[in-house]
Every structure is written in structure tokens, then in C-alpha cells.
């Protein structure tokens, strides 16, 4: 699906009014929504008024005076971008007078502009050039010798774009983009008149300023002033393909701008429904990993992990993998092998891996890394509401009056959605933040949280129950909603439970560390402030009571009737791009696609008939169970696609011991990741640019991933699975991923209306999509819950086993930052490294001082699982007693410290709470030394293959 490179820019944003207004433009009658600008009304009817400071992603500004028009009966020449249409208006956009005024404006601009158009990076994509053409500019009466900015210095500090002030026309688009779209307020226009210039921060370079490199200003700039370095290096693209970002669960749509099979730049796609033309630094700029020299493009095998790798043909690698799996099953039984598929993979890939496990391996030992992030969401929401998914669209936030964010840090982890949320907050919606850390949202430009509840890590359930206590005991329940929509008995039991005095904020204060008054205030605001929406992330799920907390959130939404319409709901912010999708398409060991339990014989028979095999009726092993089974000798072989379990799963030493005990590990990935160091077969994977498929984002939105270049290793990931399956004696016949989606749709009622053709037509689809909802379902549970009646569930707070003691007096919690992604395998191989080149331990000044720790000094972090060493960052963002780190670098060993503790219902690890002790040290930990040796040895074994 190639797209033209230049989509139409109609100058000003869409008006949401329903009322239509009819007017005449250049003698042509047109009808548009009230509130539309004359410029937009003209443009959508094919009349393009010249413009420079207007663009349809921003509110009009009216500064360039190029868009002047004449209106019958009005004096002067109003700017068409700032003048709204009126009924009966007669507008003229082209007259000799207008032409001469516009030419005058252009002359002024051009007299202060370098005339290097032929060699300019924006040549062919420059609105100033276009306007010079449109206005018929032929000479510049003032000459070029006057004052100009031609010798102003370029700012090249950002790794991805440059700022060349000599080309700036001070149209203010960049400043407004940073404010209105991104919400960072990093740019200003300083100086007056001729001296006015765009300035980042307080006269800083872009890198030194608060700029987060989202690219909105670059996108908005009409000239080459703000320009992608890749465009400067390789020139303009010649075609574009719409695809989906492969990083986070926001699922932004991008246009990959291509020169043949080379990406020139990734531009956020204006019609993308998840992002509406916005992006963050990862999707917009950090795609260079896809062609990084570390990519492994040849299959490799070895019989022991101490052997050098041997590059082999695809046939040999796949034959070897299949024969090993068969040998192991013969020797150790059908259930001794399994598969893991990353939620970074496409829906089609995930579907094929679970199909391969269930049909070719003949067991249910398949799991996905959603296990370690959002499995509690699936469980908790299914139990309460009846469907394992968020209830809203992202757009719904535009209708929220109260936004409650718990255990999520959207500005870092879901940046594009955070920008949409911040926009609503600047419009006046109230914000409640429940988080141990003072995350950016709590206080950022033009945003102040009404309440920040800085709870102790591990006490979400206590806080949620006491919020509920206030709502019930202060009579803030939505009784009509509950009576009509929810189960009576369950509600009564829940109401009696939360009303107990031990659940009051006063009683829970001991546990949570949050002042009771704050909890009461937050509860009142949530229950009575209008449309209230809850957004939550891994700070809710990755706990011993992760599933309980998810249920607690659903309880609050039901109790206040905040579900089933715009502006409200329960919104899990998913970590990786396809967490939602990987769960939907059956990659959990207990569920077939569409969240249907393997013991459900009707569903099983449906799949058995389609697949021509018998499916086991019992759940298979989950990821942590696989490790335990490997250690007791009953699990020996693993097919691991796209997932780096060694780096991302908790208690690294336990994981590596388990992998070392296995006989055949097959890793399919684009890099030799940490897990591959324990592998016997390496199958080179393909990046999101090299294959077709779909991702499903946090709002259940299915979007196309489109191939823009051939797979570097010849085969796309889905083809590899197909070939492996064939060698295991179970042929799969697909010639394109669209056929895989067709099969999913034919077997899964919530997907029955989904097809690639419909995705092409609609752009994206939010499931359920079937005969009842042929174009998908933006908001769920509108008139009734998916399970019929909503079910309140009692959420008793139970303290985690991970107790702080004298030996381990601090709590470590882990998280992520904007510029890096997950285990960092992708982002570490891009310019993003400039923002975060190592994982640091954040610690409160009190705790640091007590221990003699200084900012930047090395500290040892010891837990019950292990020890590692990082550099300290002394920070007020932390509360005393709590320390924090990220896990983007393998040598940091953040997961050497995390423990085996996990959510009671789903085994999702308790990444967010680990009791630790910290002390200053001079050298790396034993684990790190061992790791460095091992990683070096493995690199040598790889080099031997590649050089041999």
C-alpha cells in the first residue's frame, strides 16, 4: 500500500461541531462544519490558499499574512486561517490585490533566506519554495545584502535532526507543536522583530534543553530549519508505505518514507488513529537498529553452548532443530518441549507459534512475555468485566474530567498517549497520580496533579480498597448503575468488605504511607468529578497482588458507573507493541485464540477440525513453570521467538541455570541476544520493516505492519515457523500473512470481521469486529458487560513475602525510560544511547547520605537473589526507603536482583518490589565479572563462525 509522500495539509484542525454552514468560495457554494476556518473550508473543496504559519495539526496563529482573503462586505484582508466560516459569506481567495500583497510578504521572507535551494536538504519538500512559486515571486526588491541570519550557527546536538537558524522564517510552528502536540514547552521565540529566533530551553542546545526529541517540531517546520539528518545525508524519499511502530503499546502509525528499499525517515501518519500524526523519539527516529551491523543474517547451529557457532543453510538449521525436538520428545515425552513467543512479534507470528506448539509439538507448553507484564490484566478484567482488554479508545481521554493514573509513567513509557492525556489536562481535567515516585506528570509544564498519593511499593491493593471504602461509606456509589449492570450478591459482599474499618484510609495509612486525607480527597474527586478514567501500567500488574489490584481498579469503575461510554473506563497501558495481540491470539498455555480455555471442548473441537489434530485439553507450562520443569529434568527443549528471557525475566541466575539444564534451545531473533548465548540453534529473525503482519495496541486496535524491504536473512519470521512445522511433520500452508489472519478470523468470534482488505479500507480496527460490530468496537461494555453482569470481587490486601528487614532495608522498584525500550536490544543500537548510556540506581539523598553514597559513585545492590553493581544517581524523585533502576542493559544485571516472587494468579513476576541493601563499592559484582567473561566467550564463538 504505497502512499503519496505529501498528504494534503488543509491548514487548520477539524471542527467537531455538527452544525453545517454554507458559504461561497470563489463563486463555488460549499458546506462545512461550523467553526471551520475559511482556509480549511477552501482546501477541502480543492481551493488552496497560500499559507506558511498554518498547518492542520496546529491551532491557527495568524502571523505570516500570506493567507489573506477578501470577504464581500468586509473591510481589509482577513487571514483565512484564523477567520471561521459564516453562513452566506462570499470569499475570494485570488485577486490581483491579494496576489500583490502575498508577493510582498514573500519578498520579505526571501530577502533574509539563503538562496541555496538546489543544494538544500528540503529541496522538493519546502513550503517556502512552494509559496515563492505560488505567489509568482520573480525578484526581491530589497536585494539580499541587508541584515540576515545567514551566518548563524547550526545546532547539530540532537542525534537525529539539525536546527539551522539561517533558514528559519519564525513561523512559530515548531514552538506551537512542542506546546500543543507534545506538551513539553521546550521551545520559545526569543528576541523581537528581526532579532527573533527559535530557542530551545534557556538559550541551550536541543540536547541540553528539555526537548525529548519527539520530532513534532521537525514535522511542523515548513522549511529545512529543522531537518532530519537522514534526509540531509541521503535526500528525499521517493515513495511511502504506512506501517506501525514496533516499540510500545501505543501502536503509532507511521509512513516509512523510502528510497527503494532504504528507509529515509519515519514520519508519523496523520490518519493513524492511535497517534493522530504524533510520535515519540523511539518510533520516529530509533529505527536504525534494523540495519545495524550486529544483525545476524545466517542460521547457525552448535551441539553444546561451549562450542563455536557454525553458519549453516536454512535447511540444515531447520532440519537440525526439528530432529532435536523429535529426539527429545521420543526420549523425554511429548510434554518435554515448548515454545515462547514475544509480544513484540506480530499477531500472525504469535498465532503460528502457538499453533506449532499445539499441533506439531502436541502439547500446550506455549507462553508469551505478556506473562511477565500484563497477564494480571487479562485475568483480572476477565473475572470482573468479562473481557481481557481495556475498555476505551485513546481518543476517549478527550472526554475525561478526572484522570487517575496508577502504576504507570506514560510520559516515558507511552509518550504519544501521554501527550494526548496532557492536552486534556491542560484543558482542565483533574489528575490523580498514585505512584511511589514523583513521576513527570505530577508536575510538568501547565500540569499539576490534584492529588499525588506516594504509596509504598507493593501496597496498591491497600490503596484501592481504601479508595473504595471512602466511596462506599461516604455514599458516593452510582447505585442505579450497580443495580442495573452488576451482580447483586457479589456487590453486597464487596460493599460489606470494603466498608470494614480496617480498609479505611486512616487504618491503611500505616501500610501505604499515604495520608488518609489525600486518599479521601482522591476518592471523592474520582467518584464525583464527572467522567473519570483510570489508566494503569506495570506498576499495578508486576506485583504479588497484581491480579487483585486489576480487579480493584475494575471495582472502582463499576462502583462509580465509570464504564461503558466516552471519557471513562479501565485502561491498561500495555508495555510492548503487541502485548494485547499476543494474548488475543492464544499464546497463553491455557487458552486458545479469543481467550477460550483449552478445556472447553466445543472450542477445542473447532480448532481440531480446522487443524486436523487432537489438542490437549489441559493447560501447558507457563514461562516460570518451564524453568522449574527444566531444573527438575522434565523440560528439555525450547523454541523461543523474539524474546530475550535471560535478560527480561526475574532472577537471572535461576533462568540461566534452567536453560543450561536443557538439551536444545532454538532462538529466533535479529540479534544474538542474551538468551541466544545459551542456544543451540540460532534462526535469524526479521525486523518489522521486513515482513507483513498486524499488531494490536493497548486500545484493541489492530493495525497493519507492512513490509518495506526484503528480509535480511531471506525468510520472514512467519515463514521460518512454517518451515519448522513442516519438518516436524505438520505442514502449514500459507503464502502470505493475510491467510493467517483469515484463519484467525474464521476461528475466533471477536475477530470474525477482520481481514487485511478491511484493514486497508478502514486503516485499523478495534476488536471485537464481527457481524454485530462490522467496523469494530471503540468502547466496550456499553449496555451490558461482556460477561453479562459486572462482578465485584473482594480485594483483601496481603503484604508481599518480599519483606524489608534489617539485612535488606530498602525496596528496589524497576521501570523504564523514554529513550530506551525494554531489554534495549533495539534502542541500545541507535542514537538514543545519547540520552541513557547506562542503567543507574536512583536513591533518595537521605538514604544515600546514611550510606556514604555520592552521586555518580559505584554502589552494590544486594537482594535475596543476587548482587549487582551500578552507579548511583541521588534524586529527590524517590521517597526515602525506595530505590529505583531501569533494565535496559544486560551488564547491569537488574534482574539478577529481582526475585521469583510473583502474582498469585498468573505468575507475573513481582518486578516492582525487591528488598535490597545498598553500599558503596569499588568494583563490579561477582555476577558481573562472570557475565563479562561469559559474554566475551560467546562473542568469540560467534566471531569464529562469522570469520570461519
Amino acid at each position, binding site marked *: 500500500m504505497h502512499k503519496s509522500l505529501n498528504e494534503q495539509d488543509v491548514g487548520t484542525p477539524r471542527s467537531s461541531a455538527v452544525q453545517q454552514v454554507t458559504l461561497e468560495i470563489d463563486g463555488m457554494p460549499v458546506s462545512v462544519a461550523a467553526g471551520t476556518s475559511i482556509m480549511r473550508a477552501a482546501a477541502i473543496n480543492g481551493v488552496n490558499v497560500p499559507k506558511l504559519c498554518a498547518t492542520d495539526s496546529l491551532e491557527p496563529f495568524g502571523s505570516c499574512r500570506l493567507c489573506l482573503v477578501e470577504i464581500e462586505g468586509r473591510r481589509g484582508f482577513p487571514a483565512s486561517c484564523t477567520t471561521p466560516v459564516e453562513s452566506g459569506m462570499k470569499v475570494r481567495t485570488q485577486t490581483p490585490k491579494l496576489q500583490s500583497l502575498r508577493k510582498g510578504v514573500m519578498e520579505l521572507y526571501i530577502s533574509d533566506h539563503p538562496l541555496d535551494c538546489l543544494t538544500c536538504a528540503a529541496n522538493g519538500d519546502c513550503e517556502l519554495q512552494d509559496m515563492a512559486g505560488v505567489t509568482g515571486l520573480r525578484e526581491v526588491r530589497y536585494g539580499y545584502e541587508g541584515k540576515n541570519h545567514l551566518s548563524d550557527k547550526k545546532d547539530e546536538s540532537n542525534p537525529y535532526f539539525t536546527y539551522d537558524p539561517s533558514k528559519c522564517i519564525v513561523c512559530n510552528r515548531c514552538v506551537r507543536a512542542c506546546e500543543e502536540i507534545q506538551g513539553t514547552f521546550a521551545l520559545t521565540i526569543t528576541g523581537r522583530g528581526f532579532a527573533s529566533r527559535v530557542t530551545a530551553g534557556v538559550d541551550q542546545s536541543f540536547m541540553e534543553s528539555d526537548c525529548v526529541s519527539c520530532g513534532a517540531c521537525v514535522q511542523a517546520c515548513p522549511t529545512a530549519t529543522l531537518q532530519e539528518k537522514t534526509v540531509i545525508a541521503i535526500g528525499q524519499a521517493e515513495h511511502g508505505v504506512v506501517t506501525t511502530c514496533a516499540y510500545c503499546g501505543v501502536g503509532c502509525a507511521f509512513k516509512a518514507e523510502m528510497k527503494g528499499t532504504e528507509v529515509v525517515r519515519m514520519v508519523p501518519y496523520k490518519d493513524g488513529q492511535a497517534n493522530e500524526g504524533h510520535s515519540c523519539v523511539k518510533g520516529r527516529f530509533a529505527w536504525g537498529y534494523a540495519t545495524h551491523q550486529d544483525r545476524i543474517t545466517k542460521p547457525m547451529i552448535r551441539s553444546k553452548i561451549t562450542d563455536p557457532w557454525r553458519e549453516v543453510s536454512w535447511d540444515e538449521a531447520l532440519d537440525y532443530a526439528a530432529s532435536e525436538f523429535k529426539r527429545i520428545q521420543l526420549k523425554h515425552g511429548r*510434554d518435554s518441549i515448548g515454545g515462547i513467543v514475544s509480544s513484540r512479534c506480530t499477531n500472525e507470528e504469535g498465532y503460528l507459534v502457538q499453533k506449532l506448539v499445539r499441533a506439531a509439538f502436541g502439547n500446550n507448553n506455549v507462553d508469551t512475555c505478556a506473562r511477565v507484564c500484563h497477564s494480571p490484566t487479562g485475568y483480572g478484567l476477565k473475572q470482573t468485566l468479562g473481557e481481557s482488554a481495556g475498555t476505551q479508545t485513546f481518543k476517549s481521554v478527550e472526554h475525561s474530567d478526572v484522570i487517575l493514573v496508577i502504576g504507570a509513567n506514560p510520559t516515558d513509557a507511552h509518550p504519544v498517549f501521554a501527550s494526548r492525556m496532557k492536552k486534556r489536562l491542560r484543558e482542565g481535567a483533574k489528575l490523580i497520580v498514585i505512584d511511589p515516585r514523583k513521576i513527570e506528570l505530577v508536575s510538568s509544564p501547565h500540569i499539576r496533579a490534584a492529588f499525588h498519593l506516594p504509596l509504598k511499593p507493593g501496597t496498591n491493593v491497600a490503596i484501592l480498597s481504601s479508595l473504595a471504602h471512602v466511596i462506599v461509606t461516604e455514599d458516593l456509589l452510582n447505585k442505579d448503575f450497580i443495580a442495573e449492570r452488576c451482580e447483586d450478591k457479589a456487590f453486597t459482599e464487596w460493599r460489606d468488605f470494603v466498608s470494614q474499618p480496617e480498609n479505611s484510609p486512616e487504618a491503611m495509612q500505616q501500610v501505604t504511607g499515604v495520608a488518609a486525607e489525600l486518599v479521601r480527597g482522591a476518592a471523592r474527586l474520582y467518584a464525583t468529578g464527572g467522567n473519570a478514567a483510570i489508566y494503569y501500567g506495570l506498576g499495578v500488574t508486576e506485583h504479588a497482588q497484581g491480579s487483585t489490584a486489576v480487579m480493584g481498579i475494575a471495582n472502582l469503575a463499576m462502583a462509580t458507573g465509570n464504564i461503558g461510554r466516552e471519557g471513562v473506563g479501565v485502561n491498561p497501558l500495555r508495555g510492548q507493541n503487541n502485548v494485547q495481540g499476543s494474548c488475543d491470539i492464544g499464546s497463553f498455555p491455557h487458552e486458545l485464540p479469543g481467550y477460550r480455555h483449552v478445556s472447553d471442548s466445543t472450542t477445542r473441537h473447532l480448532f481440531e477440525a480446522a487443524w486436523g489434530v487432537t489438542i490437549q485439553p489441559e*493447560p501447558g507450562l507457563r514461562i516460570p513453570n518451564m524453568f522449574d520443569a527444566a*531444573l527438575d529434568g*522434565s523440560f528439555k527443549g525450547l523454541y523461543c521467538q523474539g524474546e530475550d528471557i535471560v535478560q527480561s525475566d526475574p532472577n537471572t541466575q535461576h533462568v540461566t541455570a534452567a536453560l543450561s539444564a536443557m538439551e536444545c534451545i532454538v532462538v529466533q531473533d535479529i540479534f544474538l541476544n542474551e538468551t541466544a548465548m545459551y542456544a543451540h540453534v540460532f534462526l535469524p529473525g526479521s525486523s518489522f520493516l521486513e515482513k507483513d503482519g498486524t499488531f494490536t495496541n493497548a486500545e484493541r486496535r489492530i493495525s497493519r505492519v507492512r513490509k518495506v524491504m526484503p528480509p535480511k536473512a531471506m525468510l520472514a519470521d512467519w515463514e521460518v515457523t512454517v518451515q519448522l512445522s513442516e519438518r516436524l511433520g505438520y505442514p502449514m500452508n500459507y503464502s502470505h500473512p493475510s491467510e493467517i489472519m483469515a484463519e484467525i478470523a474464521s476461528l475466533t468470534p471477536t475477530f470474525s470481521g477482520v481481514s487485511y482488505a478491511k484493514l486497508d479500507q478502514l486503516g485499523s480496527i478495534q476488536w471485537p469486529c464481527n457481524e454485530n460490530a462490522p467496523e469494530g468496537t471503540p468502547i466496550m461494555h456499553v449496555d451490558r458487560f461482556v460477561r453479562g453482569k459486572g462482578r465485584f470481587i473482594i480485594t*483483601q490486601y496481603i503484604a508481599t513475602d518480599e519483606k524489608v528487614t534489617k539485612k535488606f532495608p530498602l525496596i528496589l522498584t524497576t521501570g523504564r525510560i523514554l529513550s530506551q525500550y525494554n531489554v534495549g536490544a533495539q534502542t541500545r543500537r541507535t542514537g538514543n544511547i545519547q540520552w541513557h548510556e547506562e542503567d543507574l540506581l536512583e536513591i533518595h539523598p537521605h538514604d544515600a547520605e546514611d550510606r556514604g553514597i555520592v552521586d555518580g559513585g559505584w554502589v552494590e545492590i544486594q537482594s535475596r537473589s543476587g548482587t549487582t553493581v551500578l552507579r548511583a544517581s541521588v534524586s529527590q524523585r524517590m521517597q526515602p526507603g525506595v530505590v529505583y533502576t531501569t533494565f535496559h542493559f544486560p551488564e547491569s544485571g537488574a534482574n539478577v536482583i529481582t526475585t521469583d516472587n510473583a502474582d*498469585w494468579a498468573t505468575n507475573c513476576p513481582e518486578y516492582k518490589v525487591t528488598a535490597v541493601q545498598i553500599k558503596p563499592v569499588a568494583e563490579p559484582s561477582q555476577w558481573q565479572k562472570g557475565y563479562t567473561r561469559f559474554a566475551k566467550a560467546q562473542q568469540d564463538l560467534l566471531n569464529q563462525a562469522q570469520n570461519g
Partner: protein
Amino acid sequence: MDMQNLLHMANKIGSFFASMPDHEEALQGISGHIHSFWAPRMRSQLLAHVDTRNGEGLTPIVLEAILANRDSLKPQSELK
């Protein structure tokens, strides 16, 4: 598999359901959860532990739930 870990997991499931006021529902909840999410080899091992060691290490409510719904927890391959 590591028995201590299995007992620990079972007990944590137990402590969630233990707060339900309806005891019968709590027992069903516990055994139902283990049935739905534990692979057969984990359930067999748990049942064997209940038989040979009287469920030592399990909280009373979990033991009660397992004993009350024993058959439903047996792997299907062992059911004749």
C-alpha cells in the same frame, strides 16, 4: 518440580480466595484456579504430596479445597 514453590503458589492462591465470605465459593475458587492454570505435572505432584505427606505445608483452606475437589484436579490422562 520444586515442591516448596508449588506449595507456596498454592497457598497464595488460597489466601486470595480465603477472603470470600462464602466458604463453598472460596473452595471452588481455589481448586478451580489450580485446575485452570496448572499444567498436569504440577497438579499430579501436588496431589501426590497431599497423599504422601498429608498436604504438609499447605494452608488449611487450600488442603480442604484440594480434598473436596480432588477428582477435578487429577490430570485427565490419569482419569479412566
